[in-house]
């Protein structure tokens, strides 16, 4: 037997006491009888997080009395950590989460991931932020047509910035290049802020960012948005023509919707779906979304699921033809 010295003893006591105090107490019968956890696969204070925190109270409101939603941020690996955790949670309706495209779909395509699309029950889509091509206001390029003819004259010279390899911005650029038979040079950055800085400072020729990220500079006259990639024009940017209108078959964007683990009982799924639909059309929420430049685009569970599957097939085809990550 070894006698613990008083100092070490006290050390252990204080340690365990502080740990105990910090341990959370979880409550323990008709759904929902305890708080619902909403996993956000991105950091606190980021775009997805703020959208989730703005939406959550409205889902609570339509789920019934005393329902509370607790947001848990699980950021990292481009969302893979959070998506994996959501996929592996039990499908009891107490864990739901935000899923973001294209990351949700491209991650399992481009690397060995611990989840697949089949591991989720889609609940509904909330936001669909169309992609866009923007240039500095001083650029000689004034339209997508100019862009194509400039790139034709200077093959491989035109630089475009994106928020990273395999993101929606990058994949849309690849699709555009393929359709128009042009070659541009991809310069990946760490986030949309860096892309915007580089475009405003004219260090890159073209900025590929989503509409919500480009709209303020577009309205301000710092950037010229050449085209938006939605199927139709976003209500907040009625003057920016779509790619389709300009004769290019590129439809791309970043979607954010709600999903639960696969195998969610259908009554629970229906309940969540209905609450989400009501929340997204609540005028108060719509007003807040407008303030935050969130392009709302509600889709029900079936449509959302079908869209995700279609996106998967598209991205898979691009990857099979030419992987965007060489290695």
């Amino acid at each position: 037997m070894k006698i613990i010295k008083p100092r070490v003893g006290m050390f252990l006591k204080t340690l365990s006491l502080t740990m105990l105090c910090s341990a959370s107490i979880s409550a323990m019968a008709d759904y929902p009888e305890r708080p619902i956890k909403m996993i956000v696969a991105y950091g606190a204070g980021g775009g997805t997080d703020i959208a989730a925190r703005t939406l959550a109270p409205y889902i609570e409101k339509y789920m019934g009395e005393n329902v509370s939603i607790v947001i848990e941020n699980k950021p990292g690996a481009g969302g893979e950590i959070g998506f994996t955790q959501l996929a592996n949670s039990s499908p009891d309706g107490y864990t739901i989460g935000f899923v973001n495209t294209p990351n949700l779909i491209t991650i399992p395509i481009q690397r060995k991931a611990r989840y697949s699309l089949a591991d989720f029950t889609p609940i509904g889509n909330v936001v669909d932020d169309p992609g866009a091509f923007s240039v500095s206001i001083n650029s000689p390029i004034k339209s997508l047509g100019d862009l194509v003819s400039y790139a034709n004259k200077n093959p491989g010279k035109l630089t475009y910035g994106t928020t990273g390899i395999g993101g929606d911005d990058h994949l849309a650029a690849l699709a555009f290049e393929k359709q128009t038979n042009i070659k541009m040079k991809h310069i990946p950055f760490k986030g949309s802020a860096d892309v915007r800085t580089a475009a405003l400072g004219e260090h890159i020729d073209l900025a590929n960012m989503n509409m919500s990220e480009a709209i303020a500079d577009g309205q301000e006259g710092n950037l010229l948005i050449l085209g938006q990639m939605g199927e139709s024009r976003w209500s907040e940017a009625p003057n920016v023509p779509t790619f389709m209108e300009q004769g290019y078959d590129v439809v791309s964007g970043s979607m954010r919707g709600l999903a639960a683990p696969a195998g969610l009982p259908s009554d629970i799924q229906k309940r969540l779906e209905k609450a989400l639909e009501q929340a997204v059309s609540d005028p108060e929420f719509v007003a807040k979304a407008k303030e935050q430049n969130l392009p709302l685009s509600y889709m029900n569970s079936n449509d959302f699921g079908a869209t995700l599957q279609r996106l998967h097939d598209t991205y898979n085809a691009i990857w099979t033809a030419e992987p965007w990550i060489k290695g």
Partner: protein
Amino acid sequence: MESFTHIYDAFFIVFTIPVMISMIIGTAVGIAIGALPGLSATMGIAVLIPLTFTMEPLVALGMIAGIYNGAMYGGSIPAILLRIPGTPAGIATVFDGYPMAQQGKAKLALRISLTSSSIGSAVSALALLLLAPPLAKVALQFSPANYFWLSAFGLTSIAVLLSKNPIKGLIAACLGLLIGMVGIDTMTGAERFSFDSLDLLSGINIIVLLTGLYAIPPAIELAFSSMKNIKPIAQQNEKDDDFRWSKLIPVWFKSSIIGVIAGIIPAVGGNIAALLAWNEQRRSDPDKDKYGKGAPEGVAAAECANNADTAATLIPALTLGIPGSAVAAVILGALLVHGLLPGPQLFRENAEITYGFMITMLVTSGLMYILGRFGSRAFIHILKLPASLLAPMIISLSVLGIYALHNSFFEVWLMLCFGVLGLVMERLEIPTAPTVLAVILGPMAEESLRRSILMSDGQYDVLFEGGISWILIGLIAMTSLTPVIKKMLVRFRGSRDGATIK
């Protein structure tokens, strides 16, 4: 001057009771967050945002301003007293702050840190308030090549830290560069050193590394031995009234400018600002030897610069919507929650609140001084806590703080591993500061170099274009060659006075 009328109008909405109270609470919370290892301003503000949903915008923003300013100063308290920088920006404060505490001048060091922090914050807030739109243009001027030289400039300052044993210092710096490479490579999407682990894909967080290397080893030493070098602090020499504050004025002047410029440049944070200012202070002082051994000017330079970075970081964030740091990104999130869309329209459509927020940045730098003056009497008592109480507190708080960062247990274990690494390095007398600095600067240097080469089709001359690059190259040459030239001069003059000039 339209902006002055806006500033004048904004004063009336800042000096209301709810805003004042929220600023006081924010500043106090900020100082505490900064002082606790593992907790950072970014996290504090991120946690606060959902709580501010129902508040008036300026009440929420005043609190955020307080947290932001307070945390930057708070980081210096454990840096000085315990050699544990509370935030990454406090690392340069350790260099001279801890030696001062060891010499029994902890109280003076805390006062210098507080005064310097408050001055830095105030200068920064004034720059934000009065010069934001023109200064914002600077942020756009920086090309990838400029970023490369800037990070290279930061890396040369590591050389300064190597003076005692260059080989060991280089080992530490190379270790840092290696740790900085972990994760998905932004430029190609390739996974580097991730060992098929999901948790390593986003790289190693600097706070995890810093807390591990700096907070855990002293805690372990405290727990298992009566840490010899902390004892003398119990006998504090309180006679610091004869300290000549006036000699710090040029230090504050220079460091504030360095901090403001570093703040405006996106991706360059308070940690780099503090390091550059400390380095410049040492370079310009004829008596270089006193730095790292408890020079008051060293503490003043580092703390003034890291606080001068705070409001300046908000210049590109508010005017252009470009968040230059994680904290600025979270603050932009907070603005968005209150319906304030960052960018030039902010100053037109929401001028009152925008200027009000800037004024709270200024007011909280004053509040920080007042709260710090009262607080410093209490902080010093940390040293009187028995080691058996202090050690488990440091470890528990580190574990809590790191878990709260991303709700990840992996990172907690990683932090503890770095703790063991830190302990080993300390025993082998390998300095840990070069490691942390290399992790901050290495990836930035690598990415910006590759990005500029990619943009120029593999032509290296893009690196030598433009005034900003040449200024930075000049600065690098100056810092790295000055000691060599001086040595040569000494030799040239003969060895008779060689011993006195170094």
